[in-house]
């Protein structure tokens, strides 16, 4: 009787163990394969300074049928004077092989802080816009783009 009970418990334990290990393996795999490279990059750029998530104007299509040419434009309200201007703007994507997309360097001669370009998107993902002000502050926003056909080759 004692033996049978022990057997049952051990089998149950084995099952629990199995479930636990496979579960944890799956989870760790999931966690390892899915770090958000774009957010890590933002941390790296801002050197862990506080990044405010504000509503900057980032214009990307909601659905991109072709990931090879996705228009991305932004417009950040700023007086663009020597005292107060946007120094650098980064565009990052969290689903592309590399998170960096572009880095724009602005000067006060431009009078406004906006730009337009076209980018590749390999799959449905978030686009991040990170702005660095001349006083060292950071601001960011993100927008999701659904991609029908990816555009990174391969």
């Amino acid at each position, binding site marked *: 009787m004692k033996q049978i009970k022990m057997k049952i418990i051990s089998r149950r334990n084995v099952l629990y163990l199995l479930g636990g290990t496979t579960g944890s393996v799956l989870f760790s795999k999931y966690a390892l394969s899915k770090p958000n490279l774009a957010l890590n990059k933002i941390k790296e750029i801002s050197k862990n300074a506080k990044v405010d998530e504000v509503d900057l104007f980032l214009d990307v299509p909601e659905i991109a049928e072709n990931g090879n040419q996705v228009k991305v434009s932004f417009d950040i309200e700023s007086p663009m004077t020597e005292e107060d201007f946007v120094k650098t703007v980064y565009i990052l994507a969290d689903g592309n*092989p590399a998170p*960096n997309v572009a880095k724009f360097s602005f000067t006060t001669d431009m009078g*406004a*802080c906006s*730009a337009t370009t076209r980018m590749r998107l390999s799959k449905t993902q978030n686009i991040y816009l990170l702005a660095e002000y001349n006083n060292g502050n950071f601001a960011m926003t993100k927008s999701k783009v659904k991609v029908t056909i990816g555009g990174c080759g391969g």
Partner: protein
Amino acid sequence: MSKIKPRGKVPKTASVDEIVEIKTLIRHPMHSSRMKDKDGKKIPKRIINKFLVKFNGKQVFGMDLEPSISTNPYIAFPFKAKTSGTFDFEWTDDNGDKYNMSRKMTVS
């Protein structure tokens, strides 16, 4: 491979303190090193990695490009007109080749 050719659109005239939009496009394959040719071989990386704009010799705008930028990179940006002058555009690619273009703008 098609010839690498820069193009740009700058308004010929502008009034003082007007914010004009400058549009540029360069014909470039932007090989991201992930694409393959007909034989299945990887095409080596070759992209435009830097774009610089100078107005009368002073840098006004710069952009660092990564492989995630599309073929034939199109870049548009604003500029506040103050005095007449010349824009000098410069694209640099991974081979170190530079492509230049100049455009004049008259401010009245």
